[in-house]
């Protein structure tokens, strides 16, 4: 039996998926979720093989929800997003269904799932890597902390620190781990505000109070919070450029 979830904020949109699934004896719907928060909880609880996921939802959108999961199920997007915007993800998701969709089209998506099931996990990872192009993602970062979901607006980030496979996001309210790479943040954060000053550090230039020389050609940036961030020779050049020194 294939376990599945339907995540969409419109009851009627969920009911059409459910209706189409009724003919599928091998797929069961474990739960319907109203938003991304419920989705995360239900996925961790049920560990489904397949989810039907809307993109535009309250609280956190479909992409942000996927980012929070350690083990990612296969995804079929159901969305009214225009085709243009969703094209980028075509190769990574099992399939995407543009609302409204027919039973035949739905069936085709399921067949794709059956035929590609083993490679799906990797694809969902790739999907999230490429989701950086989505402009809506650059206003905030969504993290999970002690079972709760936290939304960090970009301007509230003080600095980022590499931590093994994670990146530690430092804010006034504490620090949070996100399973992304430093280069991901380097490429997606607004470049006029965030500078990678060191292999392991990216800092918010608006937080800098002063920059002190430190050992050889290195420097230390002192932030308003008192944190001292290493600045390499290369990073110092980038920093001067952004600050217009």
């Amino acid at each position, binding site marked *: 039996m294939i376990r599945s979830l339907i995540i969409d*904020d419109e009851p009627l*949109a969920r009911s*059409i998926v459910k*209706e189409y699934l009724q003919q599928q004896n091998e797929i069961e719907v474990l739960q319907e979720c109203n938003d991304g928060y419920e989705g995360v909880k239900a996925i961790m609880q049920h560990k489904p093989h397949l989810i039907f996921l809307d993109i535009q939802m*309250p*609280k956190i959108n479909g992409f942000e929800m996927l980012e929070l999961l350690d083990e990612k199920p296969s995804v079929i997007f159901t969305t*009214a997003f225009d085709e243009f915007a969703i094209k980028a993800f075509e190769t990574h998701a099992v399939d995407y269904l543009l609302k*409204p969709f027919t039973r035949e089209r739905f069936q085709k998506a399921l067949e794709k799932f059956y035929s590609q099931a083993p490679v799906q996990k990797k694809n969902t990872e790739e999907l999230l890597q490429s989701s950086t192009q989505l402009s809506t993602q650059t206003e905030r970062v969504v993290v999970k902390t002690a079972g709760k979901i936290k939304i960090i607006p970009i301007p509230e980030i003080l600095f980022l620190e590499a931590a093994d496979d994670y990146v530690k996001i430092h804010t006034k309210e504490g620090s949070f781990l996100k399973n992304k790479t430093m280069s991901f943040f380097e490429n997606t954060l607004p470049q006029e505000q965030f500078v990678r000053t060191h292999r392991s550090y990216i800092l918010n230039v608006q937080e800098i109070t002063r920059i002190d020389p430190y050992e050889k050609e290195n420097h230390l940036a002192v932030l308003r919070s008192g944190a001292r961030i290493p600045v390499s020779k290369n990073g110092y050049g980038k920093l001067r450029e952004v600050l217009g020194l």
Partner: protein
Amino acid sequence: MILIKEASEYERFFSESTPVRFAIGFLVIGCMSLISVLWYTIHDQQEIEKRKSEAEKLSREAELYKLRQQLQPHFLFNSLNSINALIGSQPHKARNMIQQLSDFLRGTLKKEENQWISLDEELQHLNLYLEIEKVRFGHRLSTEISDQTTGLKMQLPAMLLQPVVENAIKFGLYDTTGDITICINASKQDGHLVLQVKNPFDPETTSPKKGTGFGLSSVQRRLYLLFARNDLLQTAIDKELFITTIKIPQQK
């Protein structure tokens, strides 16, 4: 002696050369003014040219925005999806919604910018829009529309209130999870039609300053183009309510 002699000669020269000096002075002033007139004309021309191209660019953008605004693909496709779901389970509701959607689209296509319409007509049109949203989110959307100007024949430019209400739906309905109420109130104050739209928002995901998104800045811009005033659109936050107020001067 020599000095005086030279001085008188100089005086003579001075008086005899007066016309010539005047002529030279005049020429210099003439040239100066000519140059400055030319310079200012060129400058003005450049300014006009710049304004013209800017205005053209703006109107092109407005045209595009209007098209997008009218079509609202997201709203349209989601509504069609709801109809698709209703056909299976509640066909009579599906028919009803097709009718509402058609009436709404027809009303939208009929509207032209810069055209004034009656408040009654605008509220009816908005009501259609809200009824459709109620089918999609019926379990959690309720609306309160009150009009204290009945019989006063109030008028407003087309496509002005609609984006305000759409903005309220976006932040108040699409981006929230609980039961919500959207209030629209129309009243008359000092010869102005005052329209107030109230919607809740999710403080966790929406920072209030984001509330004056593109939807509202375009309303602000239109009010300025129509009335040359910047004080006709106001937004306020009252606890978890976002309040948008627009004032529309009435034509005589």
